């Protein structure tokens, strides 16, 4: 339960054209969940900000569940992997 694993938080189509603004909104969302900007920065793996909105972050299960409940979140899933075909 306490171990942090990478989760992908998907937010759908971008709501702002400015990628910087999109990334900032991701950090704010994460900071409000984790309690501080520093924690958010440590947790953030990627901000997806050009083709769509979302981010990858190191979260515990309960944190993932909590953020998934936010209205603007479409879904949260644990990171997966693919192989060469």
């Amino acid at each position, binding site marked *: 339960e306490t171990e942090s*694993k*990478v989760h*992908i938080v*998907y*937010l*759908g*189509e*971008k*709501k702002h054209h400015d*990628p910087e603004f999109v990334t900032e909104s991701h950090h704010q969302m994460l900071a409000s969940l984790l309690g501080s900007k520093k924690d958010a920065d440590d947790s953030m*793996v*990627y901000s*997806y*900000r*050009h*083709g*769509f909105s*979302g981010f*990858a972050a*190191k979260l515990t299960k309960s944190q993932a569940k909590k953020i998934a409940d936010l209205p*603007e979140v*479409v*879904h949260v*899933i644990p*990171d*997966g*992997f*693919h*192989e*060469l*075909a």
Partner: protein
Amino acid sequence: TTRTWEYLGLSSANPKNLLNDTNMGDQVIIGVIDTGVWPESESFNDNGVGPIPRKWKGGCESGENFRSTDCNRKLIGAKYFINGFLAENKGFNTTESRDYISARDFDGHGTHVASIAGGSFVPNVSYKGLAGGTLRGGAPRARIAMYKACWFHEELKGVTCSDSDIMKAIDEAIHDGVDVLSISLVGQIPLNSETDIRDEFATGLFHAVAKGIVVVCAGGNDGPAAQTVVNIAPWILTVAATTLDRSFPTPITLGNNKVILGQATYTGPELGLTSLVYPENARNNNETFSGVCESLNLNPNYTMAMKVVLCFTASRTNAAISRAASFVKAAGGLGLIISRNPVYTLSPCNDDFPCVAVDYELGTDILSYIRSTRSPVVKIQRSRTLSGQPVGTKVVNFSSRGPNSMSPAILKPDIAAPGVRILAATSPNDTLNVGGFAMLSGTSMATPVISGVIALLKALHPEWSPAAFRSAIVTTAWRTDPFGEQIFAEGSSRKVSDPFDYGGGIVNPEKAAEPGLIYDMGPQDYILYLCSAGYNDSSISQLVGQITVCSNPKPSVLDVNLPSITIPNLKDEVTLTRTVTNVGLVDSVYKVSVEPPLGVRVVVTPETLVFNSKTISVSFTVRVSTTHKINTGYYFGSLTWTDSVHNVVIPLSVRTQILQNYYDEN
């Protein structure tokens, strides 16, 4: 690729074809998400390639052994994404890793794939004298942008790609302005409910497609069993793999002068007349013998020393061959003949040790000869290259098959292309590397063939939607090989290919350039699919960025405007709708002709479609009813619109289910 484009009718020798009409795909940008690229490869030389397209916003990221100046007018972009991989593999030591912490390719797979899709001309390339010719990509003047999201992991002894890295690669590729995205990566089967829209792979790509990028993905190598195809989202082009009309016959001459042509890529010296043995307990003593390839190590050394060994295997992987060869070599043997079901992934034995594959029938012939004489002998000559007839084309054994286990009404795969023993560029680190090139097999190699063809079509029809390209290649595909011969699908027994083996068929680039009509799809069609698949309004609204309310009752998945009709559960009758858009002559008249699946009635209304300057798109209905009285398998047919110049063909696949949601074992 020294054969692929002749086989598909895209020879550079023909001054008037899709290749030359589009300046070989110049100005089109192909993005590849894979293991990186070897920039010095001749396949990425930029001789004769014009300035970088003005719209390009990508870049060439420097990193370990990779300078930003390693890019050129051909390889115009190279980025790498490793954060997700590092976060998942905390013990990974980047300084000790053999992979390059940059866009440089360690494994070779990414270089191979990029070379197939858009590699430049490289004359006089061969694999140790085999498969010789001019190496080139499908769109030799298209530009390549590599997004490295796959990393060699020592402990895994292989490559892995984290979804979070892939998602970032997709995000950057959309930003940079690629036109085609070629992805030879596959997830796991069985698919589960998480792998449709919630599969980040498909979700991220939905946005790429919504922005006009054509996304081409591998269908997977888990065939020949049914329902093994992956990357099944309707907005993605999913590719199956066939053989080429090329093989490498290797003469085996028995002591009775019978010559058998096995398959191998053996390029060593001729093995003169040598004793031939099939290890078995001929003398009924208490010693142990085995003629099974995987158990040759059970034989006493004297059985195999200084001999060529015949063995049999039920294995469909190459592991059996390499293991058997090592046992024979360890015992001092001089060669190996493996009898097995065809799998077409024959890779050479190490150190050019003579090892040749035959099928069970020929293997049994050889065994009969061995048992018919006191001192059986054999001669093995080096392999040759045989191109064109009489070599036929097959859907290769490992190519994953439909139906689409997630949404069977969405036909997958979409299309097929050659993906067996494809010669293309690779990294020097690749164990199969010979002079910077290698022959690899997989739907990984078939996928960039389609990406290359799409790049040419994109240069010809820049305004087409991604769905239009998919429609164009499906409705014009070869259902036979390019010479009119049947295409068989390898499996536990060979059978004639059907849409679940190769979708619309083998890509036919010249026909796809002028398909006549297209079954187009836009955001509304994808929304229809998502609603029909039961996703809730809010998810769909957020995905597409606009408020969306699904109709109630929800729409039928059978009405998604795909260039195929697949009905998995027909009970008595169903009527569905399709819309076609004219992309040929403004004033055109098309008539329908139907080849109904066995025992199925198909009525199309209207039977004639008239297009003019005011009527660009026309809808028609298809009423399908069954005469079967039992639950059947799928029967296959086709629906064709023709104006006597274009044949716009879509596959029809119908399964009768009198008893719904039913499974039995009889």
